[in-house]
């Protein structure tokens, strides 16, 4: 089976300081990959690269068999095109200054989907929020955990090929963390979604992931 992501010799540095150095990384379609490691080990940088939000200084990324255009690779698929297929939920997600329904529907609207209500309601249910109660709430009327789940619903509703979750349970209680786990598994089963999940909670991570990557000081440990 062709790997969805085939990365080789990735090197990223900020202001001359190396933050990520990965010799080879392969992620199979439909898999759930867990990424663990201490703070500052390059996990979030790797996630931003996999989400095509930033391109590495060096190295090559092949997505679904096609090279991705980057600093070194010209003529491949543009990252802007691939961002429609891979979406990232960051550690501290940002909610747009609008209602919950509009937040969840935003990604659909930029893709030209006109009727969004049913899909938004289903996505909210998926993350354990009652649509009738939350749809019309403003962004500032949510707790930290609720905001986290609304942000996740905004990604789930897109039914992306790749869902990247960076510390999705960091501000959630046990019950909500279980809900996120169920939603991740459901995304794979129903839509064949490939997931990459970063978490400090190794127990939770191993309960959801098929394989694990451990990172330290920007490197993947064997």
């Amino acid at each position, binding site marked *: 089976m062709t790997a969805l992501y085939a990365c080789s010799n990735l090197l990223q540095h900020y202001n001359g300081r190396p933050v990520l150095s990965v010799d080879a990384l392969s992620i199979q379609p439909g898999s759930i990959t867990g990424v663990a490691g201490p703070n500052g080990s390059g996990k979030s940088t790797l996630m*931003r690269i996999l*989400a095509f*939000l930033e391109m590495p200084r060096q190295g090559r990324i092949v997505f679904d068999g096609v090279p991705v255009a980057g600093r070194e690779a010209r003529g491949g698929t543009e990252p*802007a095109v691939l*961002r*429609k297929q891979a*979406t*990232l939920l*960051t550690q*501290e*997600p*940002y909610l*747009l*200054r*609008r209602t919950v329904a509009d937040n969840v529907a*935003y*990604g659909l609207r*930029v*893709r030209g989907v006109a009727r969004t209500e049913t899909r938004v309601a289903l996505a909210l249910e998926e993350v354990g929020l009652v649509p009738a109660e939350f749809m019309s709430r403003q962004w*500032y009327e949510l707790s930290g955990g609720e905001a986290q789940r609304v942000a996740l619903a*905004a*990604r789930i509703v*897109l039914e992306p090929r790749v869902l990247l979750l960076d510390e999705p349970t960091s501000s959630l209680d046990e019950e909500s963390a279980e809900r996120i786990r169920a939603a991740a598994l459901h995304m794979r089963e129903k839509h064949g979604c490939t997931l990459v999940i970063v978490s400090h909670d190794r127990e939770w991570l191993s309960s959801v992931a098929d394989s694990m990557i451990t990172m330290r000081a920007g490197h993947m440990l064997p």
Partner: protein
Amino acid sequence: MGFIFEGFSTALQLLLDGHPETWSAVAATVCVSSLSICVTVLLGAPLGFLLGYCRFPGRRAMRLCVDTLLSFPTVVIGLMVYGFISRSGPLGGFGLLFTLQGIALGQVLLGMPIVIAMVANAVENADDRLQMTLLTLGASGRQQLHATLWEVRYHLMLASVAAYGRIVSEVGISMMVGGNIKWHTRTITTAIALETGKGEFAMGVALGLVLLLIAFGVNIAVSGLKRRAAR
């Protein structure tokens, strides 16, 4: 003091009786300032977004220029616009001199730096996570522009109101470019200057009261928008 009180009472009478000359100046002011602020915001908001959002060589110098233009004297703008739209000027063929459109052109130049600077500031100070969120949700460049301006909408309104306050109260551009022509290009501020010079204190006060009322409305809007923007 007597003539001041008399001036106020006559001023109120002029306003309440619908004195045609007084209300003509009010109408010209509302008309030209509304046109100016619409064009100012339509041009200034995207430029402010680009200045605050994009990183390009010369950006800091451009930012410095915009900030300097914030304190550009209105008579200098009036002089420049006069030079451009007078018959021998490069835009002389459009016949804008001594018209409300000509005044509007000058007022747009006056208001633009305010809108550009305030929008750029708001975009620069917007949450760092906004851009990444829009990108990862699949927004294109234009969609990012729209969404970012929507995110800073209260700051944008605040910039518009601040620019409107400056536009509606300027006198230099209206006087030089408009020519203070009765029933045609005479605005509140030019009329106040003229009537007070002629000793028609009451009409000056009447027009000043209308201007104060507008300024009061602008300030109420500013304080309300500041509260919303801080949320």
